[in-house]
């Protein structure tokens, strides 16, 4: 991969809240670690039709089984609300 441009160095320095002198910008411009060559080399792999993955092995979300159950009675629900009005839960105004 080619060396960074001076603007790219200034941009990533800004991301890290670093002040760099022009000499330092020039120095960092050429200090590529070679790591990005790995990213570049992947372009040679044909991944047409391959779905991307997030993890190598299965990842299970932890959810209870989705089974119908008996809902709470209206009075029980209202008893837990901080403020009620008849059969409704009163909330602060969210839209004027």
């Amino acid at each position, binding site marked *: 991969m080619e060396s960074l441009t001076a603007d790219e160095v200034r941009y990533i320095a800004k991301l890290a*809240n670093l002040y760099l002198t022009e000499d330092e910008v020039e120095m960092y411009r050429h200090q590529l670690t070679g790591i*990005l060559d*790995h*990213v570049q080399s992947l372009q040679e792999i044909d991944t047409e039709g*391959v779905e*991307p993955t*997030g993890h*190598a092995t299965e*990842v299970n979300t932890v959810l209870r089984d989705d089974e119908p159950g008996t809902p709470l009675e209206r009075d029980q629900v209202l008893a837990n609300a901080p403020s009620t009005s008849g059969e409704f839960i009163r909330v602060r105004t969210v839209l004027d």
Partner: protein
Amino acid sequence: MSDTELLMKSAAELGRLISSRKLSPVELAAATSRQIEHMQPVLNAYIDVYTAELQHSAVEAEKEISGGNYRGPLHGIPAGLKDLVDVQAKVTSAGSAVLKNNIATADATIVERLRSAGAILTGTLNLYEFAFGISSINSHTGDVKNPWNVERMTAGSSSGSAAAVAAGAAVMSIGTDTGGSIRMPAAACGITGFKPTYGIVQRNGVKDLSWSQDHVGPMCRTAEDCALMMNVIAGHHIADPASTTRILPDFTSKLDRGLKGLRLGLPSDYFFERADPQIQAAVMAAVDTMRSEGAELVEVDMPWVASGRSINVAILIAEAFAVHETQLENSGHLYSDAVRQRLFDGSRVTATEYIHAQRARAKLCHQMAEAMAGIDMLVTPTVPVQTPSLADVRPTLDRPTPSAGKEFPMFTGVFNVTGQPSISLNCGFTSDGMPIGLMLSGNAFDDAAVLGTAHAYQQITAWSGLTPTTCI
């Protein structure tokens, strides 16, 4: 029994002595403390030594065991933690200046589990800054030196975890592995380091580097010890959604399986053709030993495996930048040049490139699964090159990114991409006396088979549990 004789025993042997009341945990803790004191100025393996807690916990363990409450094989065994792991009321620095005052509010889940099993914490172990590097150079916490030759690196990033175990300054330790950071230092220091299947050991309370490739695992003198430690630390935690909810096996269940009839895959390319001749010879000698004990060798073609390290790096640097972005904005000046530069590189990976890397990963996992069909595990060297000196891997103004040691993770990273269980164990020494690592990598969730095979090899050879002369 001298301190060295005692401290070079495996956790399993020490556990048997403790359970039969032939050894007191207090005696073992005192010997460990003396060894830490003796070796710390030489190796710099520790960042923080829990001297008082070590003695106190040992006394408690002694009381419990005397009272008939023996908790199991790790009861009274001293264990060190890589300094990425939270211990309540202690600093988790990640080997950085950024987190030097970061006091953990709770124990990591693996720490809770180790404490419940009766293990005794020795302290936090040195590492490469934020685990984002493969040498044992650390400009904030000092370099970790290799017990087999203090001029050489231990490799990283779990540098202190490997050096402490090799030196008897901890009977066992915890490491983390994102591209080889358990297995590479295990190989360089002649110990046994196990990277479990991805998701088997949950990571709650352990600092992230690259969440889809980070693994926590044991670093011990033997595979049997790794299995005992896995029985304690493995398992799901709700705070780590990537941790598996499977029912896990007893990780010691295949320790007696032996090698007979085992189908070992020998890659015909990449791993062996790139390895140093001395490393190649030692690993092939190990292969011959296993074959003579009844293992069957199967040649496996995997020309695509070379892309594994590139996929590993591409995903790693992108995820590491995402992990560090805010912290980098706030404290960028406190990072070392080398780590900051890698994070800068990570900032340049585009979303499209990241997704392409994840596609390449899916393809590689599929290819690997096909190659593994019909074999129990792959046998390869852990690293391709001999362990370089600290001087050769140290960044300087003229040489900010030294080339020495860069090849170290070439063989390990692919198994972080696929998430397969992978172990490194010693199988010999180079002509200048440095350990050589043999790597066994199995099928996902067949961790017990990998541990069992490594144990079988260690039972018929004398390469494990050797004492570096600097540590006597």
